[in-house]
């Protein structure tokens, strides 16, 4: 074992890495926001008084949770054009990530909602609030707070999973690593650097979520 590390060989590819990081961050920010939104709507749908809505959302969740992410991605990017729906790599990657996070966060948020004591609904009802008002104002905020750690982990999983979208030539961080590696054959350095960068992104994400929690949850101990 006498391998000479040669990080300087990657220097010419720093612009690619920088662009890749930025693309990964952008993908993550947008898919986190839209995915959690979809998950919230999904949790409401799973909790709907209409059976059709509950069943449809249930199917969506089960399909996504029981198929590989890369197959979902390929289906959207390579499969949908057969139906006349042609998407750019960026659009396809984004949709795959949102749809994926949407399904997982639906189940997470639903678990938080299910843990709501029945008395909360009843108190809202006796005060004259509509079902929708009770859901949004009374049930959802504590439910969200209860499952927040699980949601944070899921968002980080989706960020890390975004590496897969390099497979459809979306030029994010892993794409940059593959690119540098194929030109320099510095495999060890390329992927070590990339791993460290993902680690930093993940830690930053955790920090940001912890910071957001302070603003979001005024009563830290429900």
């Amino acid at each position, binding site marked *: 074992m006498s391998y000479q590390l040669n990080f300087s060989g990657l220097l010419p590819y720093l612009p690619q890495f920088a662009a890749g990081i930025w693309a990964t961050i952008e993908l993550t920010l947008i898919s986190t926001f839209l995915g959690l939104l979809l998950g919230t709507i999904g949790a409401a749908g799973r909790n709907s008084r209409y059976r059709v809505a509950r069943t449809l959302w249930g199917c969506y969740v089960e399909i996504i949770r029981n198929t590989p992410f890369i197959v979902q991605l390929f289906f959207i990017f390579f499969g949908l054009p057969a139906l006349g729906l042609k998407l750019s790599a960026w659009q396809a990657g984004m949709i795959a990530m949102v749809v994926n996070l949407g399904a997982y966060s639906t189940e997470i948020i639903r678990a938080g909602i299910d843990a709501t004591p029945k008395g909360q609904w009843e108190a809202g*009802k*006796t005060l*004259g*609030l*509509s079902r929708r*008002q009770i859901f949004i104002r009374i049930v959802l905020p*504590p439910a969200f707070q209860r499952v927040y750690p699980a949601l944070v982990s899921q968002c980080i999983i989706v960020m890390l999973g975004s590496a897969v979208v390099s497979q459809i030539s979306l030029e994010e961080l892993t794409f940059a690593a593959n690119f540098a590696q194929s030109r320099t054959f510095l495999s060890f350095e390329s992927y070590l650097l990339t791993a460290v960068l993902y680690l930093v992104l993940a830690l930053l994400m955790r920090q940001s979520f912890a910071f957001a929690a302070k603003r979001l*949850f005024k009563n830290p101990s*429900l």
Partner: protein
Amino acid sequence: MSLVSIDQIHKYYGENHVLKGVDLKVAPGEVVSIIGRSGSGKSTLLRCINGLEAYQQGAIVVDSQAVEDDEYKLRLLSRSVGMVFQNFNLFPHMTAGENVMLAPKLVLGQDSKTSRAHAQELLEKVGLGDKFDAYPNNLSGGQQQRVAIARSLAMSPKVLLCDEITSALDPELVGEVLKVLEQLKAEGMTLILVTHEMNFARDVGDTVVFMHQGKVWETGPSDEVFASPQTSELQSFISAVL
């Protein structure tokens, strides 16, 4: 003219016949105590009055509104009927003040300034003027229950339903909640209480309703009912709890 009029209510949970033809009339300003053994249908009766439970036969009219299984009508009804629960059911992510302000803002469309002032006033009334910004989990049980009462009062109900609202409290905290009820009675509020506080029922309540096996077994003015219970069931109940 009764404020609450219950006429031959029947309620089933599946096969279980829980209310078997209950009649009850409550006049404005009257304080009615419902007593009876566990499982006799007291909570169910109370929950039928504000539509939390649907009933299968009979009729309930509150403040000239028929209590029917219709979401819109029940929402209108809930403005006339307040309810306080055994385990408070405060909203844990909101301060005491926010708990009180929520419904007036969302349901009555009050602006923040009005509802805030009103909430402050109500919290002062229940002796918690300095707890506006406290979260429920930082309040004692007695304080939480008083916030819950203030929250109900914020909708200016015509009648307040209380289901064993002191049962979850440590004994030394019961008094402060009962005091609020006494004060409400003095102001003319109509109260229907399911309670185990027999002294309170006798001394403060106007009317006692003894429920047994899903029926109003015996009813009458509090002092009379406690002084000379007519049925053997009520006699044995009273001697067991007093």
